[in-house]
């Protein structure tokens, strides 16, 4: 519980702050664009559907690569840490989905006042599931590289496969390089597939990090 508290308190607050900053930036950019041409898409949708998931992936990497060794150095077991990190990934994804939804509400208000047009965006549930899986994939890949060095490369195609399924429910997020229009492939069962992808990424993280040696850091 102690580890969870630290993760939730510091990282969630940090992530929300970053999101707020990015939102303000997106609004400013929209106003600048509006000076030259008509606004036809939601800037916040670009942020949430494309950029935000990479941020969540990075948080996942940070949690395992940076914080797990520190927790062990402070006398915590990997098991304690992984329990906390698993719970934290859910809380963070929820919080960020909430932030995304809030952003759409505020942006919707601004767009209505300015009489701009926004394109379609995903539901909070879709964002939650996407963030959840990307965060877990970040943890999984970080664990694999930390443990196996360059051999951890095996985690990349696995992570990619797990990550793309989550984009099904979010307009504008299904196109990854080389993989076009995943949503069409999955059809209506994407909720269950996303949850399954999260569980697989989490199980992979546990399997790799459960008895991982803590290497000397070159700080």
């Amino acid at each position: 519980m102690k580890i969870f508290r630290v993760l939730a308190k510091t990282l969630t607050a940090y992530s929300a702050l970053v999101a707020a900053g990015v939102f303000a930036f997106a609004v400013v950019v929209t106003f600048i664009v509006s000076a030259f041409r008509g606004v036809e898409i939601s800037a916040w949708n670009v942020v949430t559907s494309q950029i935000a998931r990479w941020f969540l992936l990075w948080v996942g990497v940070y949690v395992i690569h940076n914080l797990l060794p520190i927790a062990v150095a402070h006398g915590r077991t990997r098991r304690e840490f992984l329990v906390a990190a698993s719970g934290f990934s859910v809380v963070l994804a929820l919080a960020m989905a909430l932030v995304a939804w809030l952003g759409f509400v505020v942006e919707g208000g601004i767009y209505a006042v300015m009489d701009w047009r926004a394109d379609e965006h995903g539901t909070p549930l879709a964002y939650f599931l996407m963030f959840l899986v990307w965060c877990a994939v970040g943890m999984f890949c970080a664990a694999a590289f930390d443990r196996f060095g360059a051999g951890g490369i095996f985690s990349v195609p696995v992570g990619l496969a797990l990550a793309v399924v989550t984009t099904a429910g979010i307009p504008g997020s299904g196109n990854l390089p080389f993989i076009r229009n995943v949503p069409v492939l999955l059809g209506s069962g994407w909720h269950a597939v996303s949850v399954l992808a999260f569980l697989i990424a989490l199980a992979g993280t546990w399997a790799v990090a459960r008895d991982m040696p803590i290497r000397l850091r070159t700080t």
Partner: protein
Amino acid sequence: MRVDVQGLTVRYGDVTAIDDMSFSLSGNKIYGLLGRNGSGKTSLMSALAGYRRPIGSVRLDGEPVFENAAAMGKVCLVRHSADAADKGDKVSYVLEYGAAWRDTWDNAYALDLVELFKIPLKTKVGELSLGQRSALGVVIALASRSPLTMLDESHLGMDTPTRYAFYDALLNDFMAHPRTIIISTHLIEELASLLEEVVIIDNGRLVLQEEADVLRSRGTEVTGNAADVDEFTAGLTVLSERSLGRTKAAMVYGSLDDEQLIRARQLGLELGPIALQDLFVHLTEPVGGKR
């Protein structure tokens, strides 16, 4: 805290860092872990701290340490660089981790030490000097007040006054809060008087474990006429010999009995003590121990 190591082996790929090592520490003493570079000191301490899964067994107060929350919470190991710190974290943040995650952490003491070592709280760990980073490691280790506290080369880069401040802090805190402290060091001479017991390892194997004072009394330097020295040392464990003209000095390992002392006097040999550091050098020398 009692430490029991039984058949411990640590391997990295084909390299065996610790080779089937067994020993016990009765605890609540300051131990010196001495060994040359690559002898396996860091690997041994990493296994004691649960940093890696041991082959063989590592028990703290009878409990296996690896992934055992109860035992892990009582151990602290700080290796060369501060393990418990991230390059990008401010010093104050590093202390917050300790306060948040360690049950035994003493934050007031941590702040005292930070002031003693003049570590700037608002600076990022990556921007500290080598000496300050080492000092931060010492702060983390001492303020953890862990029943088993291990410091691996923690004086690295510290200047002499800082090292002495460290020795004083270590000693005073040990007396106020007795616990098991294991220190690895190359500055044996400086630290020797603080150690109660010494564990010497070489090539991943235990060379000896002995009370520091007993070990000191085991070594004798025999100086005199070369022929007489040779006669006297025949049958004894000679660690090293040096000759200067007809004079010869031999380092002998092992206690001398009264008969031998009388014989030495008869032969006109001079018997002198050997520093811990010299004993260490010769006990860990490559095969033969002659130079």
